[in-house]
């Protein structure tokens, strides 16, 4: 028998003093972090937090509800353009514009969710892929969206605070990421999240138990798109300038890779996936600068793997890491985490 004394503990975030301690430590370190890091690293952490938001949202759809999406760059773009345009054209305050951007993305998620009711697996993958690509095409051709030239992102202010450095943006991005992660975790512990998971494990049983498949499948799309939309809105301010090619379909595939590398059906896994993969993405670009190995790798890539005449060794290594991770740990980084935890619990036996 376990030691649970009441049912609230089943769903409580922090059910022991130890967890409370670590939770407070986490908040404290998140608050002090930007004062310890150099500027470029703060930019990287912001990038990570944004990717974590998308990954958590996409995991709700892919990992928890069992539906696939290769079009999340589309929702990301809708959130980014929505937020920026609402601020420049309609003079919405930042937070309101961000939420509305997310809601517009959610609305498109709902629309895309409707055909998804009849599509599964590879068919759904292609339908969502088409959606993601269509969005960038539409944005690229429409003057309201700045066309191929893109849009200048307006100045950012929150009430009396003007946010113009990465360090200031850090507090906005990380706070929002933090809240959205908690929200996702809560959602998965209660009625709606259970219905999502039930649909993944057995949609027939779920619907005969009273779960409205139409409602919950489209809802999963909408919630997931909302996360991607909010992340897109934040991303616009990280870059300061957005154009359609930022949101190409490779980005959608990266998002899916974050989810799978982090671990399907795990919020904590998604956090790890977003953080680690963003770090890899940004760091591998500099692989050529490594002493000795860098030069060798580049010449190897130039003579054997070069198709377009561009140095592509970083993509090759990135792909290799994904393959190895998935082969050796199908549960992703979350699987590593679980095994490490068990190891330390039983150490030294």
């Amino acid at each position: 028998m376990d030691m649970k004394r009441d049912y609230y503990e089943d769903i409580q975030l922090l059910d022991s003093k130890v967890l409370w301690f670590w939770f407070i430590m986490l908040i404290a370190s998140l608050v002090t972090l930007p004062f310890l890091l150099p500027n470029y690293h703060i930019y990287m952490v912001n990038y990570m937090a944004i990717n974590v938001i998308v990954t958590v949202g996409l995991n709700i759809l892919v990992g928890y509800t069992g539906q696939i999406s290769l079009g999340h760059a589309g929702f990301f773009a809708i959130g980014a353009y929505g937020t920026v345009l609402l601020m420049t054209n309609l003079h919405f305050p930042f937070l309101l514009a961000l939420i509305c951007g997310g809601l517009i993305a959610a609305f498109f998620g709902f629309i895309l969710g409707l055909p998804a009711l009849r599509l599964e697996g590879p068919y759904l993958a292609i339908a969502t892929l088409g959606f993601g690509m269509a969005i960038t095409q539409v944005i690229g051709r429409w003057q309201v969206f700045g066309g191929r030239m893109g849009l200048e992102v307006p100045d950012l202010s929150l009430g009396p605070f003007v946010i113009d450095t990465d360090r200031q943006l850090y507090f906005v991005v990380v706070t929002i990421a933090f809240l959205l992660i908690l929200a996702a975790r809560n959602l998965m512990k209660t009625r709606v999240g259970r219905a999502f998971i039930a649909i993944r494990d057995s949609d027939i049983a779920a619907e005969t138990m009273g779960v409205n498949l139409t409602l919950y499948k489209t809802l999963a799309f909408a919630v997931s798109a909302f996360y991607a939309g909010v992340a897109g809105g934040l991303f616009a301010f990280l870059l300061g300038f957005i154009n359609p090619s930022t949101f190409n379909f490779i980005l959608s595939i990266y998002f899916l890779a974050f989810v799978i590398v982090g671990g399907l059906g795990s919020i904590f896994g998604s956090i790890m996936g977003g953080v680690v993969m963003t770090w890899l993405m940004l760091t591998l670009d500099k692989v050529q600068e490594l002493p000795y190995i860098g030069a060798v790798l580049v010449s190897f890539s130039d003579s054997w793997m070069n198709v377009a005449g561009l140095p592509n060794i970083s993509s090759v290594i990135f792909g290799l890491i994904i393959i190895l991770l998935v082969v050796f740990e199908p549960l992703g980084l979350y699987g590593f985490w679980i095994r490490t935890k068990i190891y330390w619990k039983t150490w030294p036996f």
Partner: protein
Amino acid sequence: MTNNNLFSVDQLTIRFGGLTAVDRVSFRVEPGSIFSIIGPNGAGKTTIFNCISGLYKPDSGSIIFKGEDIVGQKPHRIARKGIARTFQNIELFSRMTTMENLMLGRHIHMKTNVWTGATFFRRGSKAAQEEIKHRERVEEIIDLLDLQSARNQFVGGLPYGTQKLIELGRALALEPELLLLDEPSAGMNSEEKQDLIFWIKDIQDELGLTILLIEHDMKMVMDISDLILVINFGKQITEGKPEGIQKHPEVLKAYLGEDEVIA
């Protein structure tokens, strides 16, 4: 038709291509009784269940539940009216715990939506209060079916017999008026079957449920059924009390083959 008519099926027919899987089947179930459907493999028993729970849409005929024709309604609507079922091949949510599986059975009785679900941060929050309330209700079912040891385990790894019981528990958590059990004893050993018979009777007595049962274990069927419907090749052969069914010539023919062949 009498007024206390809870559930009846009239002239139910469904075809798959050229095959008439269920052919003009009619029956009526008295409230609080156990009604069994038996027949050889492929007779159309599970197809009838799938029509009742809305997974299949019959070609003709009606299914009346509490005075309303439920043919053509979506499965989740039918569940909300008070019909729950189990499956022949277990359809549990394998990567959820027993508790969570049963909590899903409470889905239609709960109200938490995306917003209230995502934003509970205190014990007093609406979503948290609702969770607590329904977990207490689920605990009663766990106690009733003796599932305490499986409570917080993922159901995918549990023994077959336990999984069958959890499915029964999940159906009970919905608090149905009509319970459809599709071969609940399949894959159980004789001891587990004895327990199951006990539980089904217990459920009928304590909760006053009406039970529709598909079962291959004749001893169990004869033991607990009030009425038995026999079907073969989608057609109903006969209907009656257990004693009569056992000796019915048509039933013997369906199960054992033609007389001439044997003689």
